[in-house]
């Protein structure tokens, strides 16, 4: 598949502070990609640079092999941004029709209505009288108005209730199945894990992981080998086993955190240890994520996990 988004060694500095540091990745047509990171990690800056709203200090960005600011690129791109209000004193319908007129082949009004779940009675309301949720739907409708091939969504579900969130992701998946490329930022791990085929993890402006949720788990997390002792061994004994990074022991229950669980198991069998009920668990992405979050000041970790649930 053709590459339609490409970032090469992109850095953005704001008054000497690096918001994004030397990030490089590319996205192919039809992908559904999450950019995952804590608040202030550089997700929004990265996305705004891709949209050509801010210029990178160094590095290059191309959309459809062209400069993101070119008109023919803008024809194929749609965006739902944070902190973007809509034009006031217009009715919802008038505003959507206006934005449709900016594009050569816009989506039909009825399709937009169906996709965004905007009720028909909202249609004739003034934009400034909408509730928060209705405004998000309107923003979504405006992002889709031009029937874009590539859709950018910056924290799209913030402020949505659980049902709207589910509906929203259903529609996004549907759009993705129709062949649209989707790139969204989120600080909800669960959302990234469930919705995206690929996650790009950003921490302190740097890409710290890029792959499918499974690949990330494999790469960034460590497997655990757990068992019960039939006869006790010392903590030091475990620590000196090859492939073991850490040991946890509670009574006869032992957890070995390994670099490679397959080889560690082989080692355990070869040594004929007196153990039983062996279990192997792959690491959890939450751990890696929470570790990253701990490094990021000013972010309430609990909030992230409560939200994720």
């Amino acid at each position, binding site marked *: 598949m053709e590459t339609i988004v490409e970032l090469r060694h992109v850095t953005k500095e704001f008054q000497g502070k690096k918001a994004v540091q030397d990030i490089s990745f590319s996205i192919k047509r039809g992908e559904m990609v999450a950019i995952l990171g804590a608040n202030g990690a550089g997700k929004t800056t990265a996305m705004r640079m891709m949209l050509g709203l801010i210029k990178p200090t160094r590095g290059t960005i191309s959309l459809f092999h062209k400069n993101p600011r070119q008109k023919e690129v803008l024809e194929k791109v749609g965006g739902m941004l944070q902190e*973007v209000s809509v034009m*006031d004193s217009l009715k919802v319908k008038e505003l959507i029709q206006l934005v449709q007129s900016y594009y050569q082949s816009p989506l039909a009004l009825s399709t937009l209505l169906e996709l965004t779940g905007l009720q028909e009675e909202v249609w004739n309301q003034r934009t400034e009288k909408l509730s928060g949720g209705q405004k998000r739907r309107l923003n979504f409708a405006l992002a889709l108005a031009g029937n874009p091939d590539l859709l950018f969504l910056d924290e799209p579900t913030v402020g949505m209730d659980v049902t709207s969130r589910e509906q929203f992701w259903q529609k996004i998946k549907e759009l993705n199945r129709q062949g649209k490329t989707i790139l969204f930022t989120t600080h909800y791990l669960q959302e990234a894990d469930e919705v995206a085929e690929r996650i790009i993890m950003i921490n302190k402006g740097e890409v710290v992981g890029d792959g499918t949720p499974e690949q990330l788990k494999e790469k960034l997390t460590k497997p655990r080998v757990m068992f019960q002792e039939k006869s006790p061994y010392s903590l030091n004994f475990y620590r000196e086993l090859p492939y073991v990074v850490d040991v946890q022991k509670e009574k006869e229950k032992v957890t070995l955190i390994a670099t490679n669980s397959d080889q560690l198991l082989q080692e355990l069998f070869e040594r004929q240890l007196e153990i039983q009920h062996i279990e192997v668990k792959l690491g959890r992405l939450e751990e890696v994520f929470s570790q990253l979050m701990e490094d990021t000041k000013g972010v309430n970790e609990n909030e992230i996990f409560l939200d994720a649930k």
Partner: protein
Amino acid sequence: MKSFWMQSKAEIVRTLRNKYYIFWSLLIPVLFYFLFTNIFTAPRDDEALWNVHYLMSMTTFSIMGSSIMTLGIKIVQEKAEGWTIFLHITPLSQFAYFGAKMVAQTVIHLFSILVIFTAGVLINGVHLSFSQWMFCGIWILFGSLPFLALGTIIGNIKKVETASGISNLLYMSMAITGGMWMPIDVFPSFMQQVAKWVPSYHFGNGAWEIIREQYPSFLNYLMIIGSLLLFMVLSIYIGKKQEAV
């Protein structure tokens, strides 16, 4: 091209729905006109002339207000609320965005002129020849250009409150010094000298000349065009400077 007309239409609709526009640019000038030609009147040699003179004062006052205030503050508001950012990621060009605002303002001005002129006819039975009405209308549309440019300078301000404060101040001080509220002949001589340097005086004076069966003076044209160029250059310069940050 379709987007340009749609954009202009939307801007016109928005202004007509704007309560501030209706109040400040239509109601207040008409009310002032009524008060200062019927209630608070000094004995005058030529009452009919005063009635036409003040009609032109109030029309230019209204148009100057909506140029500076409606245009400038809306631009600031749209920027502050992020709407302009959204437009940046659509194919609508900056040129079309500003162009549509200018077209819309001109249509709105034409509407304001018609409303206030009609009010003059209804309230005081003001009488002018057809060509005088036309010439006045065209002059006022033309003379509004520097104030639209001034509106775009206001549009560079970051906060809505600051923008509204500054534009109010500019608007009121130019209205007074330009002789829109009362003729400059009643000013002390120092103030009369000041008036000759403010574009609002020349804006008003063009129309005051026309109703006296004269033509706007060369200096009126020069000041209108000169201040238009000055404000345009300033607006572009400030805009570029902000972009660089």
